[in-house]
């Protein structure tokens, strides 16, 4: 499980937030809310370990993250603002290489299956630059399916998705929670899920 204690973040001269306590247990989803610029993305980046907090600490299974970095990264999937897709590679290649970077094994069939589940049938072999913004996001969602990490940290996962894909993603998160996964996400929309706790920044 993931927990954080009295997290604070300072950007330049400005204090974004301070004294944030949170805990996410298996099967739970934490929805981080707040206006633009209050530091939602900064909070997620601190939780993922990409940025250091100005104060406070993040713990994974009761241990400070810095001490269990390998174990933490093994169990974490972070999807940020940037979609980390290579425009010149096909959707399938992107998925395969993303798995390769994680040191995971992924067969081509699994990858194709994941892409099809998100409505990219017939587009597996197109360069990603030929896909629309929403379709690119769908490639990322396929990554959620193939990575098999218990903890998902998602920054605006619903952005640029059509209603069908929003529902598909919500179903995917619900499945993930049902098997004991954890999710921390930001979203400006209401999340069509049970078992969601909110954190207002």
């Amino acid at each position, binding site marked *: 499980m993931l927990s954080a204690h009295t997290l604070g973040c300072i950007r330049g001269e400005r204090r974004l937030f301070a004294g944030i306590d949170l805990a996410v247990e298996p099967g739970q989803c934490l929805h981080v809310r707040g206006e633009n610029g209050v530091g939602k993305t900064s909070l997620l980046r601190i939780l*993922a*370990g*990409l*940025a*250091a907090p100005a104060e406070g600490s993040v713990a994974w299974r009761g241990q400070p993250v810095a001490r269990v970095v*390998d174990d933490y*990264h*093994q169990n*974490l999937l*972070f999807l*940020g*603002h*940037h*979609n*980390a*897709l*290579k*425009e*010149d*590679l096909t959707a399938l*290649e992107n998925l395969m*290489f*993303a798995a*390769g*970077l*994680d*040191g995971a094994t992924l067969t081509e069939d699994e990858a194709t299956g994941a892409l099809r589940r998100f409505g990219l049938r017939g587009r597996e072999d197109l*360069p990603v630059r030929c896909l629309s913004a929403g379709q690119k996001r769908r490639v990322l969602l396929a990554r959620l399916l193939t990575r098999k990490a218990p903890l998902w940290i998602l920054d605006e996962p619903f952005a640029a998705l059509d209603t069908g894909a929003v529902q598909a993603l919500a179903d995917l998160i619900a499945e993930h929670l049902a098997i004991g996964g954890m999710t921390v996400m930001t979203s400006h929309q209401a999340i069509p899920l049970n078992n969601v706790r909110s954190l207002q920044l």
Partner: protein
Amino acid sequence: MKAFAFVVRRDLLLAMRRKSDVLSALFFFVIVSSLFPLGIGAETALLRKIAPGVIWVAALLSTMLGLQRMFAADHADGTLEQMALSPEPLALLVGGKIAAHWLVCGLPLVALAPLIGLQFDLSGAELGILVLALLLGTPVLSLIGSVGAALTLGVRGGGVLLSLLVLPLYIPTLIFGSGAVYAHTAGQDAGAHLSLLGALLVLGLFFAPWATTAAIRIAIE
């Protein structure tokens, strides 16, 4: 090691899909080093004397052209973040990127060097030493360059800064690389220079991925 091979394969595939970037650096090398024989004329003694220096400087500059792209695209599209969060050590993945950069920007220079050397009327033995020196030296260029490329990530006008940062660090490689050929021409043993190049390579292999990794962590924070 599997992740290392994956990164190399990925970067080679990307280079294949963007051939123009790679080819322009190669053509730059060929053209710059061909301008000298054309400009100086058929004075073979002079050409032979300047050949190693000119070819090495052209190789340095042509490697520089590819350096900026080494991490810039991965930084812009968030791939570096994903690499930093990978269970695999970041230094290993960065090592893969450096290796791919050398395969794309360094190795072709080594292969082309004998052809360029012929324009300067170098003898067969001198060409051999030149190729050997480049084979040892170009990986050093990629390794040192990766540190500069990572340090200038996200900096506006990073290209010029990168050259100012990296070119001075290339000086030892340049001196020993061209020195090896000069030593052979002067009738001495080129082994000492080649050994020093080898030592630079070992040092680079040991320190550069680590320094690059540290710089990348700063850049993505």
